[in-house]
């Protein structure tokens, strides 16, 4: 027995602890090689969400979302109005008559309003999507759960659905041309919707 002075034995780490630390190091290395480059792409995407294009114009997400939405609204209303007019003419309606012009004017106003609305909504949704991306990357850095956000195609589908409902209401409300030409106007719009590639 020894009751004298001297250093106490240093505690030894277990081999298991070292093995776990080595496994953790291996895994984190692998994470760095596999996932970090992918994460960096997502981070870059999030951080440039609101950047302008090189020529100073809106970035491509805004351009495509707004352009597509407005274009679809233009197409849906334009074809609907054209079909309605063609059927009205077929029934002998004078295209220069005040009644016809007033109704056409009302439908054109509805078309302009719908195009403006879907363009506005599409732009706002892209901005919201940009913030969702930033939130997700922030959560990723903290090891928190990330959320799925609407893709551009989902945004477009939402806009398309809202647009069709609005167009349904506008054409249903467009009573005078339909009354003059029987129910041809409504039928024409319905036919147009059925053959539309976007329906």
């Amino acid at each position, binding site marked *: 027995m020894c009751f004298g002075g001297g250093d106490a034995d240093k505690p030894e780490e277990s081999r298991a602890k070292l093995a776990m630390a080595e496994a953790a*190091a291996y895994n984190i290395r692998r*994470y760095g090689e596999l996932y970090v480059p992918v994460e960096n792409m997502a981070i870059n995407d999030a951080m440039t969400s609101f950047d302008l294009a090189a020529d100073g114009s809106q970035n491509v997400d805004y351009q495509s979302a707004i352009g597509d939405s407005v274009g679809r609204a*233009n197409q849906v209303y334009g074809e609907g109005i054209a079909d309605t007019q063609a059927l009205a003419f077929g029934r002998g309606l004078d295209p220069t008559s005040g009644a016809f012009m007033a109704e056409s004017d009302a439908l054109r*106003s509805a078309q302009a309003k719908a195009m*403006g609305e879907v363009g506005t909504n599409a732009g706002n949704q892209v901005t919201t999507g940009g*913030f969702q991306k930033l939130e997700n990357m922030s*959560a990723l*850095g903290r090891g*928190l759960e990330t959320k799925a956000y609407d893709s551009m195609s989902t945004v477009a589908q939402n806009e398309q659905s809202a647009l069709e409902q609005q167009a349904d209401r506008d054409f249903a409300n467009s009573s005078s041309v339909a009354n003059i030409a029987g129910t041809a106007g409504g039928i024409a719009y319905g036919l147009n919707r059925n053959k539309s590639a976007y329906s």
Partner: protein
Amino acid sequence: MANPEFLNFLSGLNDGGRMGQFYDYDPNNPYGNINPYRYSNMSPEDNPADKLLAELTRAQLEDYRQRFEPVENALVGSITATGTTQIGADLDRTRSAVIGSAENVRGQSNRFRERYGLSAMQQTTERSNATTGALVGGLNATRAVDAERRDAIISGGLSAVGQQTRNI
């Protein structure tokens, strides 16, 4: 009193750039310098596992600071008293969408009228009011969306981050 050299060393650790250089940080592979088996042959008395785990922790912190702190800064920096910093750009886009659409449709209508020998539509008060009404509606909707966005950032993503930070 603390050793000045040690204090200097600590201040180096607190500096993102210098710390990055210290660990030879590579944003495309921030853990590439970690060797899982660096301490495998070290005596258990020298705590090799602790040393390795400390390296991992430092590397993770540095990685977080280099890649994710700028994202958090951008997110928090976008919050304003009434919404987000993107409101100006969104309002511009709204104006452009509404006014551009009105002009586009007026052009279509005029081309239709011209086919029947009618003069182009003049801008009437009614049409102007319709465009103004659509514009006001669009601008108000855009402001409302922006305010909701701000609330969502604060109560959603940031609150989760804050909660997680408090739990550390």
